[in-house]
């Protein structure tokens, strides 16, 4: 009896330890690299690039758009009689003796309505015929990984590609030759901005850079005290930037690279703030949402704890609301004026991608503004809500 009692105690102890061990060993070691990138094409279709595929979804039907043949007709299985073929792009590239699956985390760069360029994670730059989803050719291979969108400067016919490890590469869009490479200490995880021939970008090495687009020479650099993984917002009217950092600060920076003012947040800021009527809206990874007055330096209008989990994307500000989505899948409509919570929804998956707004009207056939939330869960890749009443409208799954 005594032995049994001792054994029971030991069994409980072993079970507890095994539980700790299992919890440790099964701790969330996330697979993959980055979250879906969502953008809109000229027809207000949603382009979602995630993992090995790019899908184009019609927000009115919440189905993929039909694939066309070279004559511009809808393609069907078995020639002309089968089901309509949907638009999707997937690929793999030869590497050594085997093929490596392509991974997409960036938005397409449309050259015109029928052609776009897209980078894959391994550094391939692809040129794609949009209606037919055919890869025309692999334009070039850049040495490095890519997790952020490239930027085009039509004036100088240049494409600026940020690499996740060290460089920004400038390519000539005539022949895709490299014009210059600008090296930083760490990678660039955000899309560069091009203003009057100057390329502006933030880097993981804590700096904000301004580089001459023609020569690749540095104009200035500014220490932001922490890494920055989001593009700066440019206020053209007042000629200044707003940039968030992992040092839990928002900086107001002049075109000459001087800090004009700053505001301390509760946690890392990993988004490009939104500016509307002089008020800057942003959110942080503690779940706080901020509305800051930009007149005479950054000052707080309101600050609200909107969710229990971190908020990666910037708030979507429209219709009197600031809509935010959290890492726990909470989607919250805040009153734009005072930050009070108006509606709450749940998408049942982590949200890290930027939030899209699709307004009704040509060419789209939707009849209300839709808030598009993208999650890292393929079964809930896109979730659409009504901006006005917060009700869920549809879900797009892979």
């Amino acid at each position, binding site marked *: 009896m005594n032995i049994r009692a001792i054994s029971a105690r030991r069994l409980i*102890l072993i079970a507890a330890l095994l539980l700790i061990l299992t919890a*440790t*060993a099964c*701790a969330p070691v*996330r697979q993959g690299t980055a*979250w879906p990138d969502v953008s809109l094409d000229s027809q207000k279709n949603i382009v979602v690039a995630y993992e090995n595929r790019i899908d184009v979804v019609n927000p009115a039907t919440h189905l993929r758009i039909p694939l066309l043949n070279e004559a511009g007709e809808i393609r069907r299985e078995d020639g002309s009689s089968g089901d309509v073929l949907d638009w999707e792009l997937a690929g793999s590239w030869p590497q050594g003796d085997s093929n490596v699956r392509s991974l997409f985390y960036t938005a397409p760069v449309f050259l015109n309505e029928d052609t776009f360029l897209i980078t894959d994670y391994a550094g391939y730059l692809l040129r794609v015929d949009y209606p037919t989803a055919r890869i025309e050719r692999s334009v070039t291979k850049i040495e490095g990984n890519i997790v952020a969108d490239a930027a085009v400067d039509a004036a100088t016919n240049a494409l600026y590609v940020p690499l996740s490890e060290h460089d920004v590469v400038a390519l000539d869009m005539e022949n895709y030759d490299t014009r210059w490479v600008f090296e930083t200490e760490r990678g660039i995880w955000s899309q560069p901005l091009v203003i009057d021939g100057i390329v502006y970008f933030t880097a993981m090495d804590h700096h904000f850079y301004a580089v001459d687009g023609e020569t690749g020479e540095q104009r200035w650099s500014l220490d932001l005290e922490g890494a920055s993984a989001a593009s700066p917002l440019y206020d053209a009217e007042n000629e200044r930037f707003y940039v968030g950092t*992992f040092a839990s600060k928002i900086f107001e920076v002049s075109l000459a690279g001087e800090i004009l003012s700053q505001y301390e947040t509760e946690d890392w800021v*990993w988004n490009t703030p939104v500016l509307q009527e002089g008020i800057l809206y942003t959110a942080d*990874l503690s779940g706080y949402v901020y509305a800051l007055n930009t007149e005479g330096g950054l000052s707080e209008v309101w600050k609200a704890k909107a969710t229990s989990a971190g908020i990666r994307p910037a708030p979507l500000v429209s219709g009197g609301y600031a809509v935010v989505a959290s890492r726990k899948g909470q989607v919250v409509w805040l009153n734009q004026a005072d930050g009070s919570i108006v509606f709450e929804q749940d998408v049942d998956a982590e949200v890290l991608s930027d939030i899209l707004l699709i307004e009704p009207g040509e060419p789209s056939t939707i009849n209300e503004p839709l808030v598009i939330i993208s999650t890292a869960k393929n079964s809930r890749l896109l979730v659409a809500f009504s901006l006005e009443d917060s009700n869920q409208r549809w879900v797009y799954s892979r």
Partner: protein
Amino acid sequence: MWDLIINPFVTVLTLMYRIFNNDIVLAIAAFTVIIRLLTSPLLIQQQRSAKAMQELQPKLKALQEKHKNDREKLAQEQMALYKENGINPLGGCLPLLIQLPILLALYSAINHALGASPYQLIDLSGRLLLPGLDSLVPLGDTWAGMNLTRPPTANPTYALILPLLVLVTTWLQSKLTLPAPPPPSGDGKPDQAAQMTRSMTTIMPLMFGFFSLQFSVGLGIYFVVSNVVGIAQYTLMGTAEWGRLFGRDPKPKEITSVTPSTTEKRGKRSDPVGFTPEKANGTDTVSNGTMTKSLPSGGTPSKKTKASKKAGAK
């Protein structure tokens, strides 16, 4: 629960990074040393327990033989034997179980802190418990021309030395700390557990060498430092058998505590835990209820026997 373990680890690792002037390799090395030192009492306890258990093996085998048809009786006898010899049968594995989550957490902390991808970095957010450390993120990922977030195969060729170092240090640690071989069982067959332990000495280094080919260079560095510190610890504890590297197995260890079990004492005294001179292959003697067994070196039966006057006395 996971966060309670991993967050302090990530914080201390980042603090080390600051202390060592943003040198990530020194930070990993220092952090690994600290963790190994903090867990050394557990290691010592585990070694002691394992040693005691090893010394008790002949008696346990004898008990198993004697009570092979009565599991309940066997359990009672075993518990009594443990109690009399002051051994906790779980004393060997509990410290190991406690250490494993710590080592796994250390592994994960390094993985998180390097923040090689957006997913890894966003999972790092909120884990730094001390103010001011956020500004260090992401930690430096380059050392000696190698990108620590990438596997050796995606680094300069000389990075391949790291998996080799992992393999060599893992093998060395296993070789030095291999338990002394127990004697063959009564039927002359080699001990299966010992055989398994020996084959692990070959498998584990190969496995870890292979892992470090696939994992990031930063984790390879952790494996090497962890192994080197482990070897140093075993050496300081006197349990590392360096002679093995030169073909010398450890000296035989004598078992002297042979007390009849409590249950045996209560009832009529039977054969001392199943040993008979025939079974004992000439190495066991029975003397006044006291059995003494001399563990042979390299599996060779020892001719030396020694009776304890104290142990086993009624």
